[in-house]
């Protein structure tokens, strides 16, 4: 049986900021990641305005995001294929907080988008749409940045908009 009174000292934020001794530190770490073989090629494709997928001939899946291996069959994927920049909303949210849970004015609309011609979905954003009009299953199309602004990043697609 648990004792009725358990150990642990609850602090209010005032107590933490003003009364108890505390220590502050803000770590600053920087990274540079090679995008690798499969995602490197995928990002090069985005720069050209194309969505590239890798195909496993064993299970027949067309994989987005692409990989050099199929994790189901555990073998190398066989070929690269270009898929469409259209798809279907698998699920979405309308988000009013940022990465650190701070309130934002304009909501972001993250969604999982099933890319046409592939067996996969990707995480991206929806735009040029009233959140109230979005439905799961809705057809959407990528809105690309102008060619000269594309750098080989997932954000080369600004967002997906209703088709």
């Amino acid at each position: 049986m648990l004792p009725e009174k358990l150990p642990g000292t609850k602090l209010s934020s005032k107590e933490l900021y003003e009364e108890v001794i505390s220590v502050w530190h803000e770590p600053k770490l920087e990274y540079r990641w090679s995008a690798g073989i499969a995602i490197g090629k995928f990002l090069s494709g985005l720069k050209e305005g194309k969505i590239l997928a890798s195909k496993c001939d064993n299970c027949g899946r067309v994989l987005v995001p692409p990989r050099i291996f199929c994790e189901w069959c555990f073998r190398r994927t066989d070929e690269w294929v270009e898929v469409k920049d259209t798809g279907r909303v698998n699920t979405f949210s309308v988000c009013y907080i940022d990465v650190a849970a701070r309130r934002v004015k304009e909501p972001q609309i993250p969604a999982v988008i099933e890319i046409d011609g592939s067996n996969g979905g990707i995480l991206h954003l929806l735009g040029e749409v009233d959140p109230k009009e979005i439905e799961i299953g809705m057809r959407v199309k990528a809105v690309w940045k102008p060619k000269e602004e594309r750098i080989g990043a997932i954000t080369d697609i600004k967002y997906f908009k209703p088709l």
Partner: protein
Amino acid sequence: MLRRVAIIGAGMTKFMRRAKETPKELTFLATRMALDQAGIEISDIEAVTLGTAPDSFDGVHMNGEYLIDGAGGTNKPYIRVFVGGGTGVFSVIHGWKLVSSGAFDSVLVVCEEKMSSCYPHPQAAFYTIFDNILERPLGPNLVWIFALEMHRYMKKHGIKKEQIALVSVKNKRNALDHPAAGWGAKITVEDVLNSEVLAWPVQLLDISPPSDGAVALVLASEEMAKRLTDDPVWIDGIGYCLDTAYWTNRDLYYPKYVEYAARMAYRMAGIRNPPKEIDVAEPYDPFDYKELHHMEGLLLCKKGEAPKLVEEGVTERDGDLPVTPSGGLLGVGNPIAAAGLMKVAEIFFQLRGEAGKRQVKNDPVTGVAQAWGDLMQIGTVVVLRR
């Protein structure tokens, strides 16, 4: 030949938004209580398993090593295990392996989380769990994935927010009777539906709060358990399974990996009909819809039918299948790894008839506890019996 493994003692701190104690101090307080409850000393413990979630909450790299002294691991075989939110239940699975294999007769399982040290909000630490190349540039936060999963689940089965909110109402109310609880409250469905929208369909009262706290259990071999207690609680089944990290390639409406983990644990425990044979359940409830999702993954009902059980009162403490009698993460609090272990501790107390005001009414013999985590991809399950 695997040996039977028992739980013979449990201890915990309060769960709170901000603790004065350091992570190491919280860990010690819970561990000391577990030893006292089991009636043994640290010298009787042969090995220690520690669970804690990402290092980034505590802001201490190699958190396992940092916590060793508070967990009673000094100069013993000691290891930290980590599978995100699934850690609390996984730490018991790891401790079970150590004892069932015959390697050790007594193992401490300790879980700690102190999330409040991370500024401005522990949410920021979750950013780094997303794919560094394809997802982080979109500016994701952790609530996104829950919102996306919850929405998919609602759409697939035509489930309403009102039905899901009932879980938050139940668990926060149950938590009023838990001595560790930081968020016990009497709220209504309307309170949930009127709370701040964070990432639709997720609102503030759909979510468990970031918390500080620690929990510890003592595991023992059959021989040792029978020497020390008349009421051992047996770990009769364990299971765990991870799905792909390419989470956008899965259909999020159903946690298949939880089902696989549950089937593994049920097979080991000889359970063929989970809804009939399980008397009390503690599925992981970091969000209200997750309890429903996990009841389905644990095969306690058919896909899409969990909301009905909640509506009908089946999952109340006096219902046929009490679910989260502790108050769960939504009500007791969610110091991640510690919260999962609290769920196992609750089944331990329930099966011993020691849950006090929280005691379920169906004289339970068999219970299941489950946790979930990583990138929405792991299920960890233990089946306990008295």
